[in-house]
């Protein structure tokens, strides 16, 4: 029984990742049934073994390109997808595993694995967009379920999705959060991090960890200078601040490199 006729087909792909972004789709409990009614979920191994052959109208791609096989497979995914949306920090910026881009892969490999020679890895973990054209990138570690539902709704309606590229600070101010940086001296990446999470961490009096990666026009150098001179944050700490989930996003990568150079 094919219920998919007339409905757009959706495929969900996994590359190097923790599956958390796919889970964001599965945990969209209020909307999941509606999604399943409006689209035909044709390939989603995290949810079902049943596979409908491509091509697909919409592919959601989780994970980074980390192995030679990945680099081949993503080209195939692109070939059989009309619209390709990357979901999460791994797919859009290389993810936490891109920390290896700052180190020596062979050194890690021989330390971690008993038989390193059987591990086929690329030297760098890279974003999907470095390999194939991407139609839309959904940020976050993990993505926000609300944003994913919004993007699917927008694709279905043929309209522009509402995924603002301004700073987390805008969300703090809309929400009425007290600024943890100004009022408490807490280091916070909010001013250089893209909105989308609803300023969740500052709402709980924590500094922003930068899960959504750099804003549309980030200035991390100025923020770091302020953190260093005003709050006494040292270079190793500044380096760590930018080297998390979006370490290889260009603006954060450049900034953490700057502190690598001056770190003792």
């Amino acid at each position, binding site marked *: 029984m094919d219920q998919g006729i007339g409905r757009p087909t959706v495929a969900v792909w996994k590359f190097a990742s923790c599956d958390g972004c796919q889970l964001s789709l599965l945990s969209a409990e209020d909307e999941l049934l*509606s999604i399943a009614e409006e689209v035909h979920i044709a390939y989603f191994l995290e949810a079902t073994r049943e596979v409908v052959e491509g091509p697909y109208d919409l592919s959601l791609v989780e994970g980074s390109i980390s192995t030679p096989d990945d680099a081949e497979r993503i080209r195939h995914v692109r070939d059989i997808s009309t619209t390709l949306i990357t979901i999460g920090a791994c797919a859009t910026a290389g993810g936490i595993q891109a920390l290896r881009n700052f180190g020596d892969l062979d050194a890690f490999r021989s330390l971690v694995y008993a038989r390193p020679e059987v591990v086929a890895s690329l030297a760098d973990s890279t974003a999907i967009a470095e390999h194939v054209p991407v139609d839309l990138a959904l940020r976050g570690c993990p993505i926000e379920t609300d944003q994913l539902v919004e993007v699917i709704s927008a694709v279905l309606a043929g309209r522009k999705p509402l995924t603002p*590229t301004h700073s987390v600070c*805008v969300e703090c*101010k*809309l*929400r009425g959060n007290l600024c943890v940086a*100004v*009022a408490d001296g807490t280091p916070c990446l909010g001013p250089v991090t893209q909105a989308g999470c609803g300023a969740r961490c500052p709402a709980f009096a924590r500094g922003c960890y930068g899960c959504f990666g750099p804003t549309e026009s980030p*200035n991390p150098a100025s923020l770091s200078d*302020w953190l260093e001179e005003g709050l006494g944050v040292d270079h190793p700490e500044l380096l760590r601040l930018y080297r998390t989930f979006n370490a290889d996003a260009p603006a954060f990568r450049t900034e953490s490199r700057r502190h690598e150079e001056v770190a003792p």
Partner: protein
Amino acid sequence: MAGPQHVGAAILAVDELDPLIVALRDDGYRVVGPTVRDGAIVHADLESAADLPRGWTDEQGPGTYRARPTDGDARFSYAVGPSSPKRELFPPRQRLWTATSDSDASFQVVEEARESPRIAFLGLRGCELAAIRIQDRVFLRGSYQDEVYAANRSDTLLIAVECGSPAGTCFCASMGTGPRVDDGADLILTELLDGDPRFLVRVGSDAGAALLERLAYRDATAADLDAREQVVTAAAERMGRTLDVDGLPDLLMDNLDHPRWDAVADRCLACANCTLVCPTCFCSTIEDTTDLRGQTAHRDRRWDSCFGLEFSHATPASIRTSTKARYRQWMTHKLATWVEQFGTSGCVGCGRCITWCPVGIDITEEAAAIRRASDPTSADLPVPPTGARR
């Protein structure tokens, strides 16, 4: 506002604050005033005088704010908090309409119902009253009246408390908006801390006069008036900042290519905090969404900022791509082009943009730097050393 019937000044004992708040609540007002929350003195709903920030003060500087308890007993010994009446009158998010469709053929648009909440603002500073006057001008007295703002503003009561504790980022005296308040509010209070703590009250409207009549007051004496004069005079002398507004619009507009704009752009994060905390910034954007089934659509309005790329998006792209262009747009509008557009400066000197800038950019210092560099008698270098970038 009709002319005041009650012309003299009165004195309220501190104990009368609670009856004041109770009277307002009995009249159906939400009483929005200062209270300590999460380590800051913010505007929030007050239930009684016990909610006021008794014994608290604030310390503010570029990029830094701290609320601290003091040994004192004063309720209003702080400057201004992070939010302003803008949050109530021009809320961060406003639903405009909802459209629903039962079939592909037809849909129905239902505009959001507008209620007029009764809000009594307690503790407004001169700068905040000035900001309300500016937003009144923008939203109510232009070619079009803003329905959302008009509804929220239509049943408000304004109770000022003159500022006796300006912060390090304050410059209302430069802008002529405070700390002295002589009109623009229904009641104008001054907290007097000499001798018996008490409030001098002046009436600014019939509604204010009627409210005062429900409280136990005595007539003010010459000594009370002197005490008030000392409070506001001392406050005016303790401004943390000054802004020389003499010829400022022309000065800025004649210096649009000044290298100082590059210097400030090096520091600016384009995070939009300054515009969102500003009590007069009024920009918004429209957000349209549809649901998964395509049966319900919403049109919402939310605060926007000229520091965002999308703000100046004109097909095919943003026309203010550099942070330099965006900072210059904000500052020249606030201090210069606002005057020709609305007849006053857009700045009230509250200092919020300085305090809540995560890297402490100071609008008064930026203006002063351009003035210095344009003054042939100044010995200052035209561009600050890049080490000034913090």
